């Protein structure tokens, strides 16, 4: 298969790619100049017809999101979601590290299209180096007159600030992000009102992911038709995929959304196959939140629609983590449950209590003190949480339940066998110590 000509990652590997000079010399900041000649409505139309779906995980079309802004608004704010916290996911990090000016250009285009006066980059607290890279790039852009008052000498002005989070998963949820940006506790808001109507500081607000915005200069530069020509119609455009686990070349790769999970793991220009002849037991293809695939299901297409056919929540962040046959699924289960147990914000009852309960159960199972009925409780608890039946304010509990539910359902025989192989009386003994 012919290797994909990188678009978003085209500057990766280029020396000094984070500098404005290098970015501009490679055709950067041309798209934004064109955009400023067009009307904002025209730009929105272009993005709509490119069918640019949000890369943050939900896959909602960006142009449609922008058109929810009230027509009679006087002020608009843009938030750039750089709170990339989903486990095994690091595509935004790569974009910021290698090509911060691409993000800044995309941000200016989005700000112009939505007529935003200020763009806030909400950056994950753990991004230290990346913060300095982006801040340096922003300073360069300000010095060049690309940000601030009258960008590129036009009538349009936009300020850009980087805000660093304190390291909470839930602050990647758009209203949690907004609350955190306002200086409050990062608790997702109840909707309606949606951010487009009343968001940051009670003003109409657009929240877009780093990767989504990074696509914008290319859509403007090469046109919506070119963009929709990449990959299947419902999942157009370039996409970054991450792969980690026992593969030969873990990393971040770019491709169209016509590849399969198997391609991502095995292709030479991607994961490069399993390390040391290890065998695949399971793959979490979209960040852990979306759920798990068995080794038989890895022909799943990495687009926005196909994951649903495999009982997954969606494409998510398209970051695959591979679990090999040497790994104990009980510790995988425990690792997942522990993550959500610590990351639930604690607002909604079901998520707050459910995630910590699942964590306790999974921890006990991993300690070799599980009971078969614990698997049923895990499944029932998973059913009793989440936004899908309307039980929570945000989608975090869905992300918490899908991996656990799919893991328990798809690997129930293995898990049960492991529990039955425990030392007899171990579960009772551990429970006696605990209580």
């Amino acid at each position, binding site marked *: 298969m012919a290797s994909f000509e990188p678009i978003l990652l085209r500057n990766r590997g280029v020396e000094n790619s984070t500098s404005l000079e290098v970015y501009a010399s490679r055709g950067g900041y041309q798209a934004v100049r064109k955009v400023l000649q067009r009307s904002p409505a025209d730009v929105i139309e272009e993005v709509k017809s490119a069918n640019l779906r949000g890369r943050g995980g939900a896959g909602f079309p960006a142009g449609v999101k922008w058109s929810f802004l009230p027509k009679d608004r006087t002020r608009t704010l843009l938030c750039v979601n750089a709170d990339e916290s989903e486990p095994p996911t690091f595509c935004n990090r790569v974009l910021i590290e290698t090509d911060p000016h691409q993000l800044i250009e995309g941000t200016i285009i989005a700000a112009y299209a939505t007529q935003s006066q200020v763009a806030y980059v909400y950056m994950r607290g753990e991004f230290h180096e990346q913060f300095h890279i982006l801040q340096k790039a922003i300073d360069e852009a300000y010095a060049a007159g690309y940000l601030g008052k009258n960008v590129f000498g036009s009538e349009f002005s936009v300020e850009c600030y980087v805000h660093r989070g304190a390291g*909470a998963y839930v602050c990647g949820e758009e209203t949690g992000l907004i609350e955190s940006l306002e200086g409050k*506790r990062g608790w997702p808001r*109840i909707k309606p009102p949606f951010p487009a109507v009343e968001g940051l500081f009670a003003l109409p607000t657009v929240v877009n992911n780093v990767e989504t915005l990074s696509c914008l200069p290319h859509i403007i530069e090469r046109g919506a038709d070119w963009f929709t020509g990449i990959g299947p119609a419902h999942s157009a455009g370039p996409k970054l995929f991450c792969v980690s686990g026992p593969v030969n070349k873990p990393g971040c790769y770019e491709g169209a959304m016509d590849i399969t999970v198997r391609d991502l793991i095995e292709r030479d220009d991607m994961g490069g196959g399993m390390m040391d002849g290890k065998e695949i037991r399971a793959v979490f293809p979209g960040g852990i939140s979306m759920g798990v695939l068995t080794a038989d299901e890895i022909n799943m297409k990495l687009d926005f629609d196909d994951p649903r056919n495999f009982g997954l929540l969606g494409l998510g962040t398209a970051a695959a983590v591979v679990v090999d046959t040497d790994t104990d699924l009980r510790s995988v289960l425990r690792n997942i449950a522990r993550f959500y*147990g*610590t*990351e*639930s*914000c*604690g*607002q*909604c*009852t*079901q*998520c*707050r*209590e*459910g*995630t*910590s*309960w699942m*964590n*306790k*159960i999974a921890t*006990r199972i991993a300690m070799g003190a599980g009971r078969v009925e614990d698997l049923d*409780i895990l499944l029932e608890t998973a059913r*009793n949480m989440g*936004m*899908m*039946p*309307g*039980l*929570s*304010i945000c989608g975090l509990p869905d992300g918490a339940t899908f991996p656990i539910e799919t893991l328990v359902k798809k690997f129930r025989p293995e898990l049960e066998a492991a529990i039955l192989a425990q030392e007899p009386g171990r579960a009772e003994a551990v*429970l006696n110590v*605990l*209580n």
Partner: protein
Amino acid sequence: MPNVIIDNQEVDCRDGISVLQAALDNGRDVPHYCYHPGLSVVASCRLCLMEMKMPHPKTHEMGWAPKLIPSCQTIVRDGMEVRFNSDPVQANQKACMEFFLLNHPLDCPVCDQAGECHLQDYSYRFGRAESRMVDQKQVNPKKDIGPSTLLYQDRCVMCTRCVRFATEVAGTSELCIVNRGGRAEIDVFPGKPLDNPMQGNVVDICPVGCLLDKDFLFQRRVWELTGSPSICPGCDRGCAVRVDHADEKVYRLKPRYNPGVNDWWMCDEGRFGFKYIHDAKRITSPIVRRGLDVTTPDWRDVPDIIRFRFEQQVLEHGADKVAVVLSPFMACEEAWLLIKFIRGVAPEAALVMGPVPTEGKEQTFPVRSANSGASEADVRFTISAEKCPNRRGIEMLIGGAGGTTLSFDEFNEQSGAWSAVWMVGGYPKPWVDKATTKAVAKVNLLVLQDLLESDLVAAASIVLPACAWVERDGSFVNASGLIQPFERAINPPEGAKRDGQYLFELAGYEGLYSGERVRGLMAAELDSFAKIAEAPTAPAHAH
């Protein structure tokens, strides 16, 4: 007025309220923790979820939406159809109640809230009998968060009502949430305890036993208490309260919903200000002095003794030498009866408005600060500087009676002129200075009707025990002119008799005094007393 169908029943409801409120108003016990009508909606406890009919996105046909929807967050619309009696709704309630109890210590036997706990009630009604969690419980700490309040975090359901109260109503924002997920806790900031004049309300709105009142801690099981509707006498706002008492002892005061007056709240001064009613220095029996002879007469003889002594003074010195000092702690009915008696024996008697205690300045809430964002228009609660309940009522009666009326200062200036004075006290704190005591001691006949022992007792010819407001019934007129009746909660201490009863007899009536009966008599004479204001009664499930 929107018409909503709740569980197949058509319900008319007020505009702009939530479906949850409409259901509660309609007698449906919909479980909820985070929703409180006086606070912002956060929709986080997820207990009040309901099913709602919505148009299908494609066919536009009305049908039950696939998701459950928080009823606290949904505003009623005409023609809306919702249900709480379906399987998904009830399954969620059941699951939720199991979640709430996962880490709860189940220490009801030593918990003050037991008996009025919505965790108990809801678990019993909507939950399951046993927890399926076999693992170790998350044990959150017990904390002392302020001079009057304890926080037992292990019992918390994270409804955040207290946090919202401190921010939105008190405006002092002492409370916050720390930590995340299952380890989340309510807490105060280091060195900034929960210490504001309204903090006691957080204990009232806590649906479980997490926030505890140190004053009431371990004093009494709540099911042994009887609640009597009353009006707080602490200041002239006239907050509606409930007096919780048992065995002739008052244990605590709780606010009652009284829209436009105190809404759902009360201040700590009123809440903890009732202690004087059980003071050891209460006057508990009548005393009559004749020279050095001191007797405790039988209550049956008291009216005749008083009437005779007053008639004697009027005969000897004239009716214009009689004065009565009325207290702003009296009920309107009592003052009316006393005026009726005095003007009956001495038609020219002077009516004196007793001292009106004031302290400090009026306090309004939310406290305005740079951070609260509250403006003058947002005042949600006021603590008045005038620390008595019924100045306006007494003034209305003095004004209505006409004749000679004096202020307390004018009365003092003419202290040598009186031959017979009836002074009514009832103040929780000392209320006359030494000079006044000395001056009134020279009056031939001084009748003192007071609550607590003082130098005045030694100066008086006749001492009548006054009763605390919880031992009486009648009405107070508050700062906005509302005539608010209050009921008797407990009996007077042994030996004492209710003020209303002996004044009723003195004024020439027979039988038993009741505030309602006297109000009827008053209304025939004074139009202004025809209309009383009573706080609405809220159903117990609407908390």
